[in-house]
């Protein structure tokens, strides 16, 4: 079974990712057995069918897809995948923050695609809590990427108080 990093641990993980190939359409593609992350277009086209079929529905967003599209369904989703087609494509960081901070999504956000050790710290700060690393990478080694810095300046999902507010609290304590 494939392995991923989840909550700072390496775990076996059964989730599959459905990708539409040439000739397949969201309305007609065969829905695989659970658990599976479905493309956003499939979710939008067949929401009721998916909710009836899967106990734990999952959807993945590509980097050019807006998390706003899931705003009304946040509570129904068990896992939301955020795809990084290339590790230099940074849109997924904004998507993850919006899901957490604006839509208050409490389920799993999983980074998928070109996911590498040196992005993990940023991903964690943006609210991503599961990481399906690129298959050629060593997960044990990549774990170190989650804790490169022990302190940060900005507010993030992991630390809603920016350093300057905490510095002030410390100074007046």
């Amino acid at each position: 079974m494939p392995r991923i990093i989840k909550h700072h641990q390496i775990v076996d993980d059964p989730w599959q990712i459905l990708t539409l190939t040439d000739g397949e359409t969201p309305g007609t593609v065969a829905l695989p057995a659970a658990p599976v992350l479905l493309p956003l277009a499939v979710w939008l086209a067949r929401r009721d069918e998916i909710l009836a079929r899967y106990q734990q529905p999952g959807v993945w967003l590509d980097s050019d897809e807006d998390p706003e599209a899931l705003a009304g369904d946040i509570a129904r989703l068990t896992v939301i995948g955020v795809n990084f087609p290339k590790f230099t494509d940074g849109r997924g960081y904004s998507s993850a923050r919006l899901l957490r901070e604006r839509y208050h999504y409490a389920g799993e956000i999983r980074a998928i695609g070109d996911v590498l050790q040196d992005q993990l710290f940023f991903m964690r700060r943006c609210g991503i809590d599961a990481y399906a690393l690129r298959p050629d990478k060593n997960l044990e080694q990549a774990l170190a990427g989650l804790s490169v810095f022990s302190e940060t300046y900005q507010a993030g999902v992991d630390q809603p108080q920016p350093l300057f507010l905490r510095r002030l609290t410390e100074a007046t304590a």
Partner: protein
Amino acid sequence: MYRYDRTDQQIIDQRVAQYRDQIRRHLAGQLSTDELRPLRLQNGLYIQRHGPMLRIAIPYGMLSATQLRKLAEISRRYDRSVGHFTTRQNMQLNWPKFEETPDILAELASVEMHAVQTSGNCVRNITTDQFAGVAPDELTDPRPYCELLRQWSTFHPEFAFLPRKFKIAVNAATADRAVIRAHDIGLDLIRDDSGEIGFRVFVGGGLGRTPILGKMVREFLPRRHMLSYLEAILRVYNRYGRRDNMYKARIKILVQALGIEDFGRQIEEEWSYQQDGPSTVPDEEFERIARHFDPPARETLPAEDALHAARFRNDRAFANWVRRCVHAHRTPGYAAVTLSLKAPGAAPGDITEAQMIAVADLAERFSFGELRVTHEQNIVLADVRQRDLHEVWQIARRQRLATANIGLLTDMICCPGGDLCALANARSVPIAAAVNEKFDDLDYLYDIGDISLNISGCMNSCGHHHVANIGILGVDKNDEEWYQITVGGQQGNTATIGKVIGPSFYAQEVPEVIEALISVYLEQRTPGERFIDTLQRIGLDPFKARAYVGRDRRRSAKVETRELVNA
């Protein structure tokens, strides 16, 4: 200046460890060349024409004497005893060894320095006025705002992989000396009618292949909102800036495509969710940082020092230097001094190890141990007593740092060009040298007066040629070096993008063409007019006509205007 606390130091130390590990993994074959590239760029490491180049961050241009001494030592131990100052007020080392770069970063961290985000598609070094804190025309010191932005932008988790690089500049003076409208975001510190400090926000400026001046997106932003508002801009850009074509990926293209009104509406909407959130900066934080920039213990002195006045009257060479290189200061009896890195024969912006040590000494003896790097690639000692100016001049002169040419034709901004840079279409330093040779007579330079001449070796426009009165751009035609000339560009409050005068020139023609342009000015000027004033009054045509007299240019040059991405 700002001093690190334990947390700042720990973050920078951990950055060194992270980078060292990245290089180790790369050398062990665990991190590919492509995977390492954006990581090393965010640590300032380029692979250039002859090898690596390391760009060291100098936040908003501020350096202590101790830091400059460390840079001198690093240049000796790890490079060829020379550094190069850039238009982002940073320093580049052109000959470091790849394997030694982690050690260089560790050396830098020992004096509260780093190379964080000096390249890459992230927020770059924040720049500002070199006279911050001493300029008489300043509303308030911009450096605390720059420092807050430095901390906020350092390892920002959401904005480390933007569509393209992102540059921010801050101005707080009546006269903009930070070219804020040539930046992705330009912040102009102002007071509103109620006396509150805030910003006029410009967005979408930038040079490069498509030079555009920033447009005002907000007339007044109270300072407490600066971070949340910038996050809103960056988020809209991160999500919707173009990623399909790296030549159209800067925020200026997005602003242009949407129009400033629509872009502004999107920002306001995004900001409405973040406004008054935890990133709102309380006054106490501004005050905490501002205390780091408290004025040094200056003496109470008469506005005019009698000894200095006498020397000024009696020593013509000294007086010339004072006229060009000494600037007004808000405290009576003090002055700011520009040390010119534009001596004839020197590559503009280059500084040798010996000069670094000499400047550190000067800063310690005469300017409270601090100095600034200017975006025009010179150095400023900001707090010199008038009575010390003569001695500073004598010492600087021995180090070839006292060329009295600040603001004159030979005070050129110039990129390293094709001699070093992998992107350049053409060399730029030899053009600067040729201009220097042609205009080697100081009296002639004084007669020409205030003028700006900038040189870029390629469309990336590191030499800011678009905003120079005379701009020179290296272009490649059939593997030959050619130079396109623009005129009419300006920095400052009346920032303007220059216009191309026509087909490009051979390298050896460039000094003659500049002389031709200057001769039109000298013939046509009215008393008190600068080059740019005459140009604006009589228009481009007389200059254009003179530039091509006797030159055969039937075929119009096809210019390679591709902007390249450094790697």
